[in-house]
């Protein structure tokens, strides 16, 4: 069996099966689901596994080389105007392409969809420009993030409460499976051409800055539009009786996602063609490989999104509702934490981030340790989100101290961890979060009888927040370990003999 093929299969199995297994177990032991929905869930799990594998393959073959190519080529252009223009247009296009954004815009009915989408897209465009200029001008990432988040926090006082949670959610949501492989690769391309030693630290941070754009954009919109009660997009539960019904549901829904993902991919393929015509960076086989990669990405995303929306969303919503109704109210917190622990792995963009981190740091930060840190982070965030639903704790009380802690930490943590941490915040909150965790919280919230707009929403924002702290904690422990090592190693071993710079000649026997 082909090695890469095997690797991708294993990767997608190990990322989808744990969370599917837990949901399955819950639905057997705690809140029995009907057989029909269980069947749908199992079929969608299979779709997720295939979708995930195809998507990873596609990202490797098409999205990453394209992002890296554009990154290196604009850094070679030496023309500031071109750099700014290209970064802006790329940020804009890639955001419009992001399927998650469509979902978000439906959740905010008081703002017309095109207005929201374009505002967010321009927000990402501007911030991608900022992020690229930061790399070129060598401005410290943590200073930049601190200033921008202070801006966000100040602005949050002027935004109506109903809007706040959605605004923070949008930051996490917009950096989804389409954006992440592309923007991450672009960052690596941008810094790959540089000879200085800061280069690898600067490979990260683009996603981080790009996800501030939407938060600000939606907040500003919130000040202009009087927000009405949001439509929670209450997930409909269909009654299925036999296997034919199960497959009918998928066949009914599939064309919808096929079209949605197609519309998303067109601008990116357009960019690829344009870039190739102008720069001629890729050669025959590479072009064919990338074309194939786009096909993989397409099939992968269609399968993944269809599976997760049809199979996972209703189950999430039901689980949330039933656990509360069945008087397991306080059990909700530990259960959701367990789900959170395993769900990060099933976010399609997470594996790409982990792999990128492992490559850029040459294995010093392993994919495994990234996974653990992210799992713990997200687990805590879901716990907090559920706590909010049960107690009605305002989101300010968590978000503001959370960001303050994260920003203070960014002053003490090795630089590369700052970039990785703030990037992973945007990466961790992808389609899995918005289609499973959000309905889960909405379900629980409506069963408790809380305010959907202020209590259920905000879960994405929390998922985007905790990894910042978790990964930076990892960075801090790394630094402490390093310091200890330096202290415990006796000084004499570092003394180099006086004649050690003499060149010795070797003779063959």
């Amino acid at each position, binding site marked *: 069996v082909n090695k890469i093929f095997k690797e991708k299969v294993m990767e997608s199995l190990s990322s989808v099966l744990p969370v599917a297994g837990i949901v399955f177990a819950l639905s057997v032991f705690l809140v029995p689901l009907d057989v029909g929905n269980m069947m749908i869930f199992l079929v969608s799990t299979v779709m997720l596994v295939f979708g995930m594998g195809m998507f990873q393959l596609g990202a490797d073959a098409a999205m990453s080389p394209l992002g890296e190519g554009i990154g290196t080529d604009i850094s070679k252009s030496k023309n500031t105007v071109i750099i700014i223009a290209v970064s802006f247009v790329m940020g804009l296009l890639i955001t419009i392409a992001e399927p998650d954004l469509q979902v978000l815009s439906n959740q905010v009915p008081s703002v017309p969809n095109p207005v929201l989408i374009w505002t967010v897209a321009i927000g990402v465009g501007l911030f991608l420009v900022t992020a690229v200029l930061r790399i070129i001008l060598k401005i410290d990432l943590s200073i930049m993030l601190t200033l921008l988040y202070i801006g966000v926090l100040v602005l949050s006082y002027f935004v109506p409460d109903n809007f706040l949670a959605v605004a923070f959610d949008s930051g996490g949501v917009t950096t989804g499976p389409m954006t992440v492989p592309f923007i991450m690769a672009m960052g690596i391309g941008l810094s790959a051409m540089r000879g200085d030693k800061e280069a690898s630290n600067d490979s990260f941070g683009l996603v981080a800055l790009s996800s501030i754009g939407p938060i600000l954009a939606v907040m500003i919109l919130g000040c202009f539009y009087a927000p009405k009660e949001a439509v929670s997009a209450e997930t409909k539960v269909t009654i299925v009786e036999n296997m034919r019904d199960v497959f009918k549901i998928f066949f009914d829904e599939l064309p919808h996602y096929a079209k949605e993902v197609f519309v998303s991919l067109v601008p990116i393929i357009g960019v690829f063609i344009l870039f190739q015509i102008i720069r001629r960076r890729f050669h025959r086989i590479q072009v064919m490989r990338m074309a194939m990669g786009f096909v993989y990405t397409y099939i992968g995303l269609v399968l993944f999104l269809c599976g997760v929306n049809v199979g996972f969303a209703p189950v999430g919503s039901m689980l949330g509702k039933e656990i509360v109704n069945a008087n397991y109210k306080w059990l909700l917190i530990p259960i959701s934490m367990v789900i959170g622990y395993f769900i990060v792995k099933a976010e399609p963009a997470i594996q790409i981030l982990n792999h990128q981190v492992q490559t850029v740091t040459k294995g010093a930060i392993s994919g495994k340790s990234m996974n653990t840190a992210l799992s713990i982070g997200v687990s805590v965030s879901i716990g907090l989100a559920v706590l909010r639903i049960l107690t009605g704790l305002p989101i300010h009380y968590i978000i503001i101290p959370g960001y303050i802690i994260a920003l203070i930490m960014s002053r003490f943590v090795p630089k590369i961890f700052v970039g990785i941490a703030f990037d992973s915040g945007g990466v961790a909150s992808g389609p899995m979060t918005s289609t499973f965790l959000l309905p889960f919280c909405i379900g629980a919230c409506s069963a408790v009888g809380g305010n959907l707009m202020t209590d259920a929403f905000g879960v994405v924002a929390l998922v985007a927040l905790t990894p910042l702290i978790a990964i930076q904690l990892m960075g801090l422990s790394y630094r402490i370990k390093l310091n200890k090592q330096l202290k415990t190693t006796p000084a004499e071993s570092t003394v180099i003999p006086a004649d050690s710079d*003499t060149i010795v000649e070797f003779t063959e026997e």
Partner: protein
Amino acid sequence: MNNNEKQQPFRILISITTPKLADKAAEMFILDNIPLQYECVGRGTAPNEMIDVLGLGSPEKVVLLSFMPKSVSDNMLKKLKKELKLGTVNSGIAFTLPIKGATSLIVKMFEGFNQDEEKTAERKVNLVSDNNYYLIAAVVNQGYSESVMEAAREAGAGGGTVVPSRSIVNEKAIGFWGTTIQDEKEIILIVSDDEKRLDIMQAISSKCGMHSEAKGLIAALPLDNVIGIDRED
């Protein structure tokens, strides 16, 4: 100042393997107290165009470099072959290159522990080849590794590894606003026996040489010992 005393022969041991095997090899080196190790990341090349287009062709490879006396390196190669099963499909290869001179510190690091190693080594070592294999290195512009491999394969090469790198040319080195910008290059490494060496080099050079857009430079380095070449696919 220059009392450059002559020493026993030294080698650079290079292994090109999957990341997992590279970790294992690195651990083995550490266990055997080999003090210096450097690694860089490259990727393998596809066995044919179909696999390449399908995106299944270039698995990640890790190039691991270390220094040691010949007596140790021969022993190490045998150990690598046994423990990592180099030579089987999807594993990797390892080889040693002679070096002519080095900082004396490198030699000092090995003082004291190679005597006992040497005895066992001398008895056992009976490796595949001596000076019959070559490491062909082609440096081309970014994006041409596929063309290089195509040419090399037609001339009988088994497989290759691509290591991304940068060229340092003075006039291009300073970009704008003080950032240093460097040109992307790809180094393609191919191990070949003496028989095919010239054909492969000539094939690459004809297709991707200085007259082509690839602007390739090709050189061959003599190898001391090779393992993992016997079953290339």
